[in-house]
Structures are given as C-alpha cells and as structure tokens.
C-alpha cells in the first residue's frame, strides 16, 4: 500500500531513496538540502533496509564514495547544493567516464561563489553542458513538485542502470524546502548480493570469481581506445534522446504564446498562464521534465504555432540558449528570470511576457502582414 504524507521535497526524496531499495547514500551537509541526510540518519535505514548512510568529510569524498559503491553494482546516491556540486564535478566526470550508474541530486541555491542559500536555477549550464571535464552528459531530471522529488528517485536509478551512467536530479531550494502532499511508493527490497553479482557480473568489481577480472577505470592511454569510449558514451546519449525524453505540455493546444520553464519556475509560470488566460491571452507552457535529453523537436514544432516564446528561469539566462537553438529563429525567443535567490512572482512573469513577447510578437505579426500585402 502506498502512503499519503505531507513532506518537504528533501524529505520525500530521502524517503523515496530508502523505498527504492537504495544500497547507500553518501553526503555532506549544505543548505538548502541538509534535510536529506538528516532525514536518512533519523530513519535508521540500516535497520529498515540495510541501507548504508554515511556523512562524508567533504562533498569530494562523498562523490568518490558514490564512485566506489557504484563500481560494485550497488544502487547509490548523493545529494548536495550548488557549491557542493561544483566540488563533486570531478567525481561526476569520472562516473561518466567509467560508465557507472549513480544518482546525484542538486538542490540548487544562488551563485556564483558561496552565493545565497535561497532558491535558484543558475546551475542549468553546469547540469546539461557537462560541468565537469571531458565529453560527457548527464541524464537530467527536473522535478517540479514534492511528488516528483519522490517519484524521480526510482526513475533516476532505473535510467542510471539502463545506461550505466550517472543521473542528475536537478531540484532547487524551493522544491526542496516546500511541503506538499506526497504519495509514497511501497518499499522495494534491496537487491541481494548474489542477485547483484549474477546481474552485473560482466562489469562490476565484486571479487574475481569464475571469470576474468573486472576493472573500473576512466583511463585509456591509447587514443583509439579512448575515442571508442567517447563514441560509446555518445551512442548512449543518442539512445536517451530517442527513448527517454520527458516533457509536459500545459494549455498548448490553442496557445498563441509559449512559456518554457522547468522545475519551480514551471510551477510559478503555470500560475502566470492562468493569470494570462484570465485576461484572454492564450498562453501555453512547455515544461521540460528532462533537461537532457531536451524537447528540441517539440519546441521546433510549437514555434510554427506560437508568435513568441519566453524562457522563464531563476537565473540570468541559461536554458534560453537551448530554446533558441531548438526554435532556429522561427519566432522571437526572450528570457525572463530573477537571480540572487529572489523568486519571480506569477505577476512578474506575465508582465515580462506582455512586454518582451506579446508587444514583440504583434510587431512581427504586423510586419508579416505588410510583407504579404507587398
């Protein structure tokens, strides 16, 4: 039986990790995500499921602990917030290079530097454009509710093991700190060691028994081998784009204008859509649920239908670049967002839409008509 609870996003995520049958969590406290490790410690998961929870000496140690457990085929997770994720990037690059499954959670706060502890989406570039060194990508899930903070944990593990690749859950202080009703899934048993060895015997380091030795490494000093590794990674990412893209369209059917927003911004933008429709403006919302893969084709097609697109993000303009790439200059694309931990209000978003896009859009519409007359 599933269970209905009022929980913070961070707590729901932690509870979901236990219920998803995670084997281990390694983390280091940082606001606004410390509730994850606090909740896990309070839950005594070692007694509930045998899950290992350890407070590491640093984010660097934590991500390398994740690397260690992942190299043995265990389901392992870590979480942090922006400055901590910067520290983890080396380890994340290694996870990608060594082709290891792991779940990393970023409850984003404002930056750069020590920044602010208030919500932000300023880690979009870091999340989808590599972040760490080398040719790699992360499968990035962006939850927009406490329910999704819970649901995406198991989804993330599934994807991580499907592709043997690290998966990022990109949340933020708003989703992490807010409480909502959440339907918790049933407890799944942790995989037994014998089962794990049977299933991942072809790659995991569990002790050399009845087979040649397994080696986990991201090092290939022979360039041809390294290129082959990179190609293998690119093939995975292509498959992710073909099979595991996720997005949500809200009020898009009759939309004349489009807002693109993910995570907390998508929630606020949805209210802006409601306010706009109250005023008789037909606005739709495209919410990318995965930020990589990105709904490029959907945006390309919607650009034929709408007069302009506003990318709403809690940052100085990051995802807007991907929106522009997808739209390929078919219609004007603008960015709106607050930074420094300030959360934009639905009213602000509507105002930005009216000033940056609708005004713009009508001008363009006009021009088109004129040119058609000519």
């Amino acid at each position, binding site marked *: 039986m599933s269970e209905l609870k*009022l929980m913070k996003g961070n707590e729901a995520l932690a509870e979901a990790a236990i219920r998803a049958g995670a084997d281990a969590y390694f983390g280091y406290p940082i606001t606004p995500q410390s509730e994850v490790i606090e909740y896990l410690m309070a839950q005594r998961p070692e007694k509930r499921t045998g899950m290992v929870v350890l407070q590491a000496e640093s984010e660097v140690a934590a991500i390398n602990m994740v690397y260690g457990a992942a190299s043995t085929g265990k389901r392992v997770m870590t979480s942090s917030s922006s400055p901590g994720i910067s520290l983890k990037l080396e380890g994340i690059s290694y996870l990608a290079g060594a082709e290891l499954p792991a779940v990393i959670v970023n409850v984003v706060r404002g930056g750069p530097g020590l920044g602010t*502890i208030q919500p932000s989406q300023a880690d979009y570039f870091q999340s989808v454009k590599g972040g760490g060194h080398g040719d790699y990508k992360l499968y990035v899930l962006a939850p927009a509710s406490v329910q999704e903070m819970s649901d995406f944990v198991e989804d993330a593990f599934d994807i991580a093991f499907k592709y043997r690749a690290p998966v990022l859950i990109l949340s933020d202080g*708003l989703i992490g*700190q*807010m409480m909502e009703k959440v339907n918790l899934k049933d407890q799944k048993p942790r995989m037994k060691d014998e089962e794990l060895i049977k299933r991942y015997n072809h790659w995991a380091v569990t002790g050399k028994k009845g087979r040649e030795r397994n080696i986990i490494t991201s090092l290939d000093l022979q360039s041809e081998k390294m290129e082959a590794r990179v190609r293998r990674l690119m093939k995975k990412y292509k498959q992710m784009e073909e099979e595991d893209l996720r997005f949500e369209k809200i009020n898009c059917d009759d939309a004349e204008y489009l807002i693109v927003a993910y995570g907390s911004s998508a*929630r606020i933008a*949805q*209210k802006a859509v409601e306010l706009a429709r109250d005023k008789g403006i037909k606005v739709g919302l495209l919410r990318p649920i995965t930020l990589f893969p990105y709904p490029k084709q959907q945006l390309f097609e919607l650009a034929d239908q709408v007069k302009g697109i506003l990318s709403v993000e809690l940052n100085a303009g990051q995802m807007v670049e991907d929106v522009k790439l997808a739209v390929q200059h078919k219609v004007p694309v603008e960015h709106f967002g607050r930074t420094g931990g300030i959360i934009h209000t*639905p*009213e602000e978003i509507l105002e930005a839409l009216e000033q940056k896009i609708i005004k713009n859009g009508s001008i363009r519409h006009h021009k088109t008509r004129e040119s058609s007359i000519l």
Partner: protein
Amino acid sequence: MENLNNNTMTEEIIIAGFGGQGVLSMGKILAYSGIMQDQEVSWMPSYGPEMRGGTANVTVIISDDRISSPYLKVYDTAIILNQQSMDKFEETVKPGGILIYDPNGITHHPTRTDIKIYQIEGNKLANEMGNRKISNMVILGGYLKVKPIMKLDNVIEGLKKSLPERYQHLIPLNKDAITTGMNNVTLFKVSEKAPLS
C-alpha cells in the same frame, strides 16, 4: 484558479510573524488538514538565517485542483503576528480578501478598507489559558471562524498528523485553543480608533 472553475475552491494564505511564534507549524497543521479532506496542499516557508529569531513566513495553499505556483505575490488571506509582517504583507491581500492579526505588539494597525480585517488576541488568550505556546492555535481558530474552509474534525486530524509523538497528549489543549479563537475573533473597523494593546 477560482476564476477558471467556479465550482472548485482555492485558498491562498500567507502566515507571518516572528520565528518561535508557531508560524510554520500553524501552516503545517492547515496543510495537513487539507490533506485530511482530500485537497491539494502546498506549504512554502521562508528559510535560512531569517528564521533564527527574525521574521518567519509561510505560504499555504489549499485547493481542490492541482496547485500551480507555491509562491505568490498576492493572497486571499494574510495571518499576521507582528509589526514587520504587517508592514510587509498588508498590501498583498487581494481586494475582498481577509487580513487577520494578533494586535499584541502591533503599533500601526491596518488601514485598508477594501478587505475584511479581523483581530484575534492570540497571545493574550493563550496566556490566560496558561500556555503561551498555543497562541498560534488560538489564531488558527479565529481564522477558521471567519473562513470556514475546513471542518474542525479535519483540523484535529491534521494536528494529530503534524504533532510528533511526544506532543500528542496536547491535542485536547490545542482543540480548546482553536475553540477559544473561534469564539473571540472580532471584526476590526479601520475607521475605529485602534484599541490600545
């Protein structure tokens, strides 16, 4: 949302005061009560250093529909527990909305005439009941009287859910506090001279 569908209810509330006045827990009880009557809820706190001794506020939304933004600029109801919050949030009540406040410590009373304003002596009544900590429940009672969005039974169930095990014995006291609040909330007329507090 209300405008989209008149048959469904959405109540957008800001609760604001000092840290330690039970602002966040009042919001939590409201949210849990909403769950008890099968509604969608969200509870979005201010967090960080400002919580430590400074001002605390929480946005609570209770709705029959999926909730869009958990973060708002304007509210149906503002529940105000100190002067800083009055200064900040009086203006954010939608025209026709409700502002309910504890006059304890308030030096500048609200002045808006396009909203309904209520007073509830949470602090004073709680002291009279012998437990200063239940002032937030008195205020919650006052709110539920003027905006009966949920049944008292559901609130008590919500209370049970949100109180840790060691405080469960305080449920009857909390129930009394809510009732006291319900019986003592008064309409405040802006034209009246502000009562001394």
